């Protein structure tokens, strides 16, 4: 395809190509939840991505993060607390049964009653009711702007509630959704085989007859699969993949921006915390140089961000944060004031790249302010154990990343340990910040919300218990001779396979 891609897209599938064919993908990790395939309990993007082949949501996000119809053809918001979704006709589950309003109501109720993380993201839902046979009404206790964005993610997918209620289907063990593909076979950590859902509601979709997903944890194996054509598309982890694949025939490497971002945790809850004094934390925030982290550790593919993920409409400007305008000398002065001139601390990271690279740049940054950072690399399990296992947690500082989601207000919730839960062990709740977060959540999109969000960003920056750093790019490579895919330029839910139903397989090879 030689014509330029429309804005918001990295690639668009060439609709003139014939449909059919088998699409081979290679991804680095399988879904691996103890909860099985139940989409409502899925909490990581890699699982959402695979489940999205079979499950669908009422609404979805467009390339510009606008909310688009999916299983709901349209929706009304008679008041900021009420949403009425008009269901699409002719949607069936892959077992052939038609989707009903009961399925939608049941699914949402089930989600709200579950222990899922996503329950919190749906906001203050008061009730979910059937509004006639083809519509569903959701009422909120108070206005909640990210509501639609939260509905657009896989945990809010519509499940076959009739079968689940009569126990003929266990969603943890069986994938039964309205999506474009049906699972034929799954071997944990080895592969998935999907077959076209012939009863799919969208005309002419999905284009490919079958999708094979190979799980290949090693980057070299995925690169090989791409090069020798055994995979038409692969997710890559290295920010320099484009350079490495330069010269490989018919392979195109693209970087998809995401709203995910890295952040630094400073433990204030440990009994002898080095970060109890906010001045110390602020000094760290000042000394950090997100620009350098993005340029060096992420090869220029990421960008600095505040706690509202950069790249989302309405996110605040990281350059406007209080810490951005201060100099290293001010950081040193803050440290001196706090009596922490020779601050030394251990930064616990997991060993998956590029976390070690990010950590090493952080180390260099902080050295400018006279802070010594010792890096402690752990495998993911040990890292999780150390960071989340105990309250109060025992680490000094840790590095991780958040999925940024599709609305700038969603991820800010994690700065309130009382709602987030996972960070009670190392983060003190800040009443003021919590109020600001809640206020921004209620504010309808627009200039006022932007201002409210900016206030959240600034407050979080001064509090500096969790310091946002840079966004996390996703690298995707595909064979131009085997595939014509559609890809968004920016992803909110980390779903590389979002537009897989559009992808056209080029049969000539």
């Amino acid at each position: 395809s030689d014509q330029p891609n429309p804005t918001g897209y990295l690639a668009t599938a060439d609709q003139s190509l014939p449909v059919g064919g088998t699409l081979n993908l290679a991804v680095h990790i399988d879904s691996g939840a103890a909860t099985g395939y139940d989409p409502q309990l899925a909490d990581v993007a890699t699982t959402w991505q695979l489940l999205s082949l079979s499950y669908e949501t009422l609404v979805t996000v467009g390339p510009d993060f606008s909310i688009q119809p999916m299983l709901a053809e349209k929706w009304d918001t008679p008041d900021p607390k009420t949403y009425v979704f008009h269901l699409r006709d002719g949607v069936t589950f892959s077992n052939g049964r038609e989707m009903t309003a009961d399925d939608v109501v049941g699914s949402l109720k089930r989600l709200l009653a579950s222990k899922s993380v996503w329950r919190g993201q749906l906001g203050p839902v008061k009730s979910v009711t059937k509004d006639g046979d083809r519509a569903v009404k959701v009422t909120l206790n108070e206005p909640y702007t990210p509501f639609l964005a939260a509905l657009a993610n896989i945990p809010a997918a519509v499940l076959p509630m009739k079968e689940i209620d009569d126990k003929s289907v266990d969603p943890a063990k069986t994938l039964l959704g309205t999506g474009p593909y049906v699972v034929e076979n799954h071997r944990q950590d080895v592969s998935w085989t999907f077959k076209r859902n012939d009863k799919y509601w969208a005309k002419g979709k999905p284009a490919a007859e079958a999708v094979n997903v190979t799980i290949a944890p090693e980057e070299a194996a995925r690169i090989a699969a791409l090069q020798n054509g055994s995979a038409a598309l692969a997710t890559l982890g290295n920010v320099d993949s484009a350079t490495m694949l330069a010269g490989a025939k018919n392979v195109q490497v693209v970087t998809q921006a995401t709203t995910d971002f890295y952040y630094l945790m400073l433990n204030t809850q440990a009994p002898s915390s080095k970060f109890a004094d906010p001045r110390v934390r602020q000094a760290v925030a000042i000394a950090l140089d997100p620009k350098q982290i993005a340029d060096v550790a992420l090869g220029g593919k990421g960008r600095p961000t505040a706690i509202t993920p950069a790249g989302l409409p309405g996110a605040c400007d990281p350059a406007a944060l209080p810490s951005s305008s201060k100099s290293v000398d001010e950081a040193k002065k803050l440290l001196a004031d706090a009596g922490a001139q020779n601050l030394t601390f251990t930064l616990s990271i997991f060993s998956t790249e590029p976390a070690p690279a990010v950590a090493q740049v952080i180390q260099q940054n902080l050295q400018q302010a006279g802070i010594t950072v010792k890096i402690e690399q752990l495998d993911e399990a040990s890292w999780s154990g150390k960071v989340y296992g105990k309250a109060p947690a025992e680490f000094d500082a840790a590095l991780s990343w958040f999925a940024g989601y599709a609305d700038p207000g969603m991820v800010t919730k994690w700065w309130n340990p009382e709602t987030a839960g996972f960070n009670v062990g190392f983060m003190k709740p800040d009443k003021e910040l919590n109020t600001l977060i809640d206020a921004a959540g209620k504010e309808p999109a627009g200039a006022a919300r932007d201002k409210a969000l900016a206030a959240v960003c600034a407050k979080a920056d001064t509090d500096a218990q969790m310091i946002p750093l840079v966004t996390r790019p996703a690298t995707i490579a595909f064979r131009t001779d085997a595939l014509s895919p559609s890809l968004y330029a920016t992803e909110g839910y980390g779903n590389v396979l979002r537009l897989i139903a559009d992808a056209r397989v080029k049969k000539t090879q």
Partner: protein
Amino acid sequence: MRLLMWWSGRALSSAATLLGVSVLIFTAVRLMPGGFAETVLGPFATAEQKAELAARYGLDQPVFMQYGHWLAAVAGGDFGISMISRQPVGAELLARLPVTGELTVLAVVASALVGVPLGVLTAVRARPGGGGAAGRLLSGLGVSVPEFVLGSLVVFVFSRYALGLQVGTWVPFTRDPAANLATMVLPAAVLSVFAISVTARTTRDAVLGVLVEPYVTAAVGRGESPWFIVRHHILRNAAAPVVTLLGTITAYLLGGALIVEHVFNLPGVGSYIVQAVGRRDYAVVQAGVLLAAAVFIVMNVLIDLLVGVLDPRLGVLAGRRS
């Protein structure tokens, strides 16, 4: 009768070893920092979710109770279910064993076919003046190239320049033997480089020891050709340490050919165990390690038998000189 005694003694000590391994691995996985719940349920899991999960897999019971249950189940052939895939561990291991097995067999055969001649050559050519240097350098080179570097290079080069052998896609042997072999040749080759070198060095050492034996001098004195002497007198007499090594390598590879499995994306046992360790999937780790130990023990028994066959003085069946 003698055999029976030997076998029963061996079985007893093997059982003891397996029991030791089981205790050790069972305690060890539970000593690892970061639990299954944190790893798999993720940071957002609540305490009750974790508790529920623990209860589901019996992880809330005292450790020795867990061990007892597990041991009883294992004795009955039930290795438990993977907490990740919720599939029986035994079946998954069985499905993955052929991959690792094939890889290992190919690699070990290669190291025997290349390493042994190389070792013999460097030993026979060894001269105080430094002859056989090329062979020594070659085998030194083999141990010094890390598997992942060689593996990555091979994978890259073969996939980019389409050199005929497929990499990165595994085909079951039962589906297409030819294609299966084509995919296994390269990983086996990469795997064998190290093994070849070690085999060559061990062979060299063993052969050097045999070369000074009077019966070799006697054979030279009878006018036999070097090749003949090597074939009939040296190989067998130098075999014991080499066989021990090859057997050990076999067991070792079966337990962990994981880097190669990773780089070539082969669904083998090594990557299964390591992934399970990474996620603290206890049942899998325990079963995997136990399997590796069992293979190792069986291998040891076979080695002992083989060494006995090769050298009647050392064998289990050898009686004392009358």
